[in-house]
């Protein structure tokens, strides 16, 4: 699964994206799975209020959203476009 990071989340993780084999079936589980792998994920995901997630380029509003069959998951802070 391709996992992408943007803005200061990218800076905290240290890479714009990575290809990982994951076993989780929801976004929430994926976050927990990543935190177990490395401390940097714990730091990046520390303030859950500032965390936004897109599954296959669609923003999800519930961290219990399924990621089964998903091709890419993106983590980023609130958008500041325009």
């Amino acid at each position, binding site marked *: 699964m391709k996992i992408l990071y943007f803005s200061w989340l990218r800076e905290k993780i240290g890479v714009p994206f990575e290809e990982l084999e994951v076993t989780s079936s929801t976004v929430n589980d994926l976050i927990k799975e990543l935190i177990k792998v490395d401390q940097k994920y714990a730091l990046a995901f520390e303030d859950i209020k500032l965390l936004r997630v897109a599954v296959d380029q669609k923003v999800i509003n519930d961290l219990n959203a399924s990621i089964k069959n998903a091709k890419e998951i993106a983590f980023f802070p609130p958008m*500041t476009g325009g």
Partner: protein
Amino acid sequence: MKKIFRDCSISVNIQNSDFDINSEMDLIKSEKKIGGITNFIGVVRDSSKEEDQLLSLELEHYPGMTEKAIMSICIEAKKRWKPNYIRVIHRIGILRKGDNIVLVITASAHRKEAFKSAEYIMDFLKSRAPIWKKEHFKTYSKWVKSKEKDELALLSW
């Protein structure tokens, strides 16, 4: 994502390069039944309290998703006010003070529909387009924080 105007009245571009308002306008004015054209241009502003502190504004985006997200916003505006034409250009990369960031043009027979569409699109671009801004000042850099009032603005639509 670049669409030929004749085939589709919505066109969205994400690009590093600048845009030319006059030539974008000329494209629209060749269309029939256009009576009013609203356009909004966002430019890089120095938000520092002292003057001349901003060196550059860096815009990062989510390639692929950005175009889709902006297109969805435009389609919703089109549904609500039926403007004849919507054009959005959002720049990314490194920009300087006074540089253009974003252009939204909406055109319709009457002014109200053009104004409302442009305002709606701008409001949603602020917090629904996967773009992030980092300000580089002389002595430090920081990611622009999202504003609560931008989120609240969406509730009014």
